[in-house]
């Protein structure tokens, strides 16, 4: 099936939670809603699932208008951030509950529950109750309940947010295999850019009740349509700084600058905002073409495999992220190398004007 939002808005009192949004979701791959808390991801999911009614606009399934239809009649599943199971039922009964509601014959239920339990490695726990399980197992039980019935759409609202880091990694690894190939529309909300990249599929960037950009996940990461996209889809935050273009020269505050050629040189002269992701600013020249910039190091962090430095240059704090271990002295000036080929040039309205490597 396909799920479509047509000019949907949602207002509560004087607050607009969702501005006019149109979106078309296809089955088979992950549709990720990426944005900060309160950006509107959960509201979008509730609208799609029928838990909330749009103030205006339509929700269509396979072209049919389902706007007023209750969630019970839509054959959907929802997995929430908190591990929601029926506390008084065993894991088996929990997983079986959607089948029982749907009136599936008893003879068939046991087989299907066991199949779902096998996929999620819950077989040994079928006769325990949810409060006897760990957080990861509880969430797997909730997931099993979502996949056991063949629903038309599965909504996952930050399902891994309350799990341990490593557990999150494992489940995230399994999820695509688990849900793929069912002809189901999968909607997955997350606030973590890295999670979106790991899951792949298509991503809709959500910011303050608007969808800023929608497209294949890696493509929109590499080609943000505007400054907001680059900011939302960035961890650590993208470096942004004002520049002035004169001819084939780009000038950055603090006397730094570089020359550009081809398509980048051809854009009109004037003021732009340049955006460059932290891993394209490194303490050693690793990229083919680099521009040296100097700044005073304020904070350093080391994550074992990567080094991070926050440095101040021309009144802006820049972040550099590089593989390996680098020794910085806090409070001292250091030289960093920025790769101009990987810069985004944003115009005054925030839209992307051109990407640094436009010429290839």
């Amino acid at each position, binding site marked *: 099936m396909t799920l479509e939002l047509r000019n949907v808005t949602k207002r509560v009192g004087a607050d607009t939670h969702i501005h006019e949004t149109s979106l078309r979701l296809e089955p088979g791959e992950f549709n990720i809603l990426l944005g900060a808390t309160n950006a509107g991801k959960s509201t979008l999911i509730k609208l799609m699932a029928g838990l909330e*009614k749009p103030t*205006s606009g*339509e929700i269509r399934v396979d072209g049919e*208008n389902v*706007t*007023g239809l209750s969630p019970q009649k839509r054959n959907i599943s929802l997995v929430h951030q908190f591990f929601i199971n029926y506390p008084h039922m065993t894991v088996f009964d929990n997983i079986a509950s959607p089948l029982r509601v749907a009136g599936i014959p008893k003879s068939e239920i046991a087989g299907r529950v066991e199949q779902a339990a096998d996929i999620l490695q819950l077989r040994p726990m079928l006769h325990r109750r949810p409060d006897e399980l760990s957080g990861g197992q509880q969430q797997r039980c909730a997931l099993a309940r979502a996949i056991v019935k063949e629903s038309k759409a599965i909504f996952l609202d930050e399902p891994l947010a309350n799990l341990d880091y490593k557990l999150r990694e494992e489940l995230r690894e399994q999820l695509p295999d688990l849900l793929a190939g069912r002809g189901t529309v999968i909607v997955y909300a997350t606030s973590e850019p890295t999670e979106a990249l790991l899951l792949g599929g298509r991503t809709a960037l959500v910011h303050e009740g608007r969808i800023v950009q929608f497209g294949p996940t890696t493509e929109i990461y590499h080609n943000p349509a505007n400054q907001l996209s680059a900011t939302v889809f960035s961890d650590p935050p993208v470096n942004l700084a004002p520049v002035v273009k004169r001819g084939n020269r780009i000038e950055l505050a603090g006397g730094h600058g570089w020359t550009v050629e081809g398509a980048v040189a051809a854009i009109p002269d004037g003021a732009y905002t340049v955006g460059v992701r932290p891993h394209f600013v490194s303490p050693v020249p690793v990229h083919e073409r680099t521009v040296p910039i100097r700044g005073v190091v304020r904070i350093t962090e080391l994550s074992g495999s990567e080094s991070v430095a926050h440095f101040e240059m021309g009144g802006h704090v820049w972040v550099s992220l590089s593989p390996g271990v680098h020794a910085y002295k806090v409070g001292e000036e250091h030289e960093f190398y920025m790769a101009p080929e990987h810069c985004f040039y944003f115009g005054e309205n925030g839209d992307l004007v051109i990407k640094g490597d436009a010429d290839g």
Partner: protein
Amino acid sequence: MKTENQRGWLFVLPVLILVAFNALVPLMTVVNYSVQETFGDNLFFWHGVGWFEDVLRSDRFHAALGRQALFTFTILLIEVPLGVAIALAMPRKGFWVSVCLVLMALPLLIPWNVVGAMWNIFTLPDIGLLGYFMNHVLGIDYNMTQSPLAAWVTIIVMDVWHWTSLVVLLAYAGLISIPEAYYQAAKIDGASNWAVFRYIQLPKMKRVLTIAVLLRFMDSFNIYTEPFVLTGGGPGNSTTLLSIDLVKVALGQFDLGIAAAMSLIYFAFTLLVSWLFYTIMTRNEQ
């Protein structure tokens, strides 16, 4: 917006009908009586706001209202702090929790008229346990059919005995919902027990306490059965609270117009005070 589902309103209909029959229709009947004069035989004459004027100017009404206010104020003053104190003293986990909760819930399970009758017998000077003890062991002259003070003390003690548990249970529910981290943080911040109460427990209990005070206010303001069974409003008129007085007027003297006007004033008063109280208590939120 044509597709919007309007069926939701149908579900509210039964409630509307129910409310109409058990509240609106009787209320309207009372309103009807309150503006007319009748001498029986189903003959009614328009009387305007005459009954209201009579009631509001009547010393008898003022006295009953005064007694009612004093009663409600006194029991709130005792029951709320006492309830909070008991809730604070109750264990938070372990075997004793359920024992305490059951003990607390016991008085709430007893019917109103039984409570009145129980206390009536309990306080009889010759055979009642309390009455006998006061008069014959302690030597205090205690007889609530003769002394207004004794009657007052008895109805207040009875109400406190009957209803403090409600405050305890509500306050306790508020207390156990406070995460352990708050107490740990306060310990680390060097807060005294008083500071913990003032800045953590009391603010976190505020919502439930608002409900507790509201419930106790409305209940005690409308109280009828227990004091009626216990003292019948006496000795004299000393414990004739508003509702007792109202019944005397309506059923004893059959002054339906006056009684109806009294009821409406009474109703408006309860509504007004509850609203005022709720507004003040929730003013600071958001």
